[in-house]
């Protein structure tokens, strides 16, 4: 399913409810137009960052609670686009994963274009028990591997979640690190190891 199809669904939904539209104009469209007029490119952050893909458009349109059917279609679409490693090995180096989890760098207009993108994990999640400075926007991942087991299935689940959290939960707050190309295959493997490797401090 492509983006145009979803945008058509959005347009058709609005066409189906013309009376509602007449009473309450879609303010989000007006706000989007305002932003397009007011923002300027800076550094690596071009105006194309304001182009919404289907997931963003649908989550915005339905205040993060889209209808079940639409949500299912889009989630399947996102799931199908996940690229799992060709060699089938999903478990990298947890030490590299820990370093990556600490970094929140990358993709802001003040980061130079070559800046290595961080995993941003500690911004929102608890991971290694030694790191007390963790955020609470996402669930705690302390002992995740110990509780869920380091199985092939769990590895695939965690890899997919980091690659594209929207595949399982369309309007999740979590970025789609693999889908948007912020993190590469090796980096995601290292993060999988941080979360699942029995040797990782997360599971000690």
């Amino acid at each position: 399913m492509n983006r145009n199809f979803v945008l058509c669904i959005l347009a058709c939904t609005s066409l189906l409810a013309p009376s509602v539209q007449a009473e309450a104009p879609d303010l989000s469209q007006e706000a989007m137009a305002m932003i397009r007029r007011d923002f300027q490119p800076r550094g690596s952050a071009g105006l194309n960052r304001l182009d919404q893909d289907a997931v963003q458009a649908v989550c915005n349109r339905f205040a993060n609670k889209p209808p079940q059917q639409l949500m299912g279609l889009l989630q399947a679409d996102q799931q199908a686009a996940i690229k799992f490693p060709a060699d089938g090995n999903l478990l990298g180096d947890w030490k590299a994963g820990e370093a990556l989890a600490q970094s929140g760098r990358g993709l802001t207009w003040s980061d130079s274009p070559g800046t290595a993108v961080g995993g941003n994990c500690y911004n929102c999640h608890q991971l290694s028990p030694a790191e007390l400075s963790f955020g609470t926007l996402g669930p705690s991942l302390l002992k995740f591997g110990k509780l869920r087991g380091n199985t092939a299935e769990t590895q695939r689940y965690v890899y997919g979640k980091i690659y594209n959290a929207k595949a399982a939960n369309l309007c999740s707050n979590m970025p789609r690190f693999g889908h948007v190309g912020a993190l590469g295959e090796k980096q995601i493997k290292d993060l999988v190891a941080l979360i699942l490797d029995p040797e990782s401090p997360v599971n000690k």
Partner: protein
Amino acid sequence: MPSRTIEREQSMRNKMLAAASIVVLLALPFVANAQDKTIQAIERYREMLADDNPAELYELRGAELWRKPRGSQQVSLEQCDLGLGAGIVKGAYVRTPRYFVDAGKVMDIESRIAWCMVTLQGFTAGEIAKRPFGSETYKSDMEALVTYVVSQSKGMKIDVSTAQPQEQHAYDMGKQIFALRSGSYDFACATCHGDRGKRIRLQELPYLSDPKDAGRAYIGWPAYRVSQGEMRTMQWRINDCFRQQRFPEPQYLSDSVNALIMFLAVNANGTVYNGPAIKR
């Protein structure tokens, strides 16, 4: 800025950094409930900071700039109408953003000061927008002017109206922009500020649709930012939020930013303003 003032600012800053290290040392022995202890230590650090706020120096410099004939017209800002009539500064800040008929726009306090600099003093909008935010080596006049003006609303309640249709519209737009997800990471303002009791790392995140949290956050700006050695305004705060959201940059004093400030201000209505703040 006279060197005596710079020295005073540096000495204030050194005291604060010393206070910060004391707080960190005090926090170290506690292993149990380390999380709570760390947050308590940060609270104590904030209290210690409040005793000696370099914002006062910006306020003094802003007051001088306000009265000084400047720009191509060589006039002062003393006849500037901040919404309560020409020349009235007292209480003007807590009544902004508001709709200004002469400009045909909803403006926050910083936008209105810029408007007066253009219409009264003869500065160009381009000149003002060229470098609005200061750094360690560059002191922005605007940050000093804003600090002076807001300090003249100390002790007053935030009282922002949406009675004019343009004001209501700005609020509605701000509310929409607050929820709008875009950019590389699908972030909206609401991603971090849309729920109660959340943190990013150890930083508590205000739930900005809640009056109590919005009030506390709103009166937290403008603030002297110790880590940056600089006074920061609400325009800067929102600009930096968009940076962290991985968005492109909002143009200085743009309608989008003013709409967001309107949304926050209305949510903060009724909160007593304590004057320029100070932060880590």
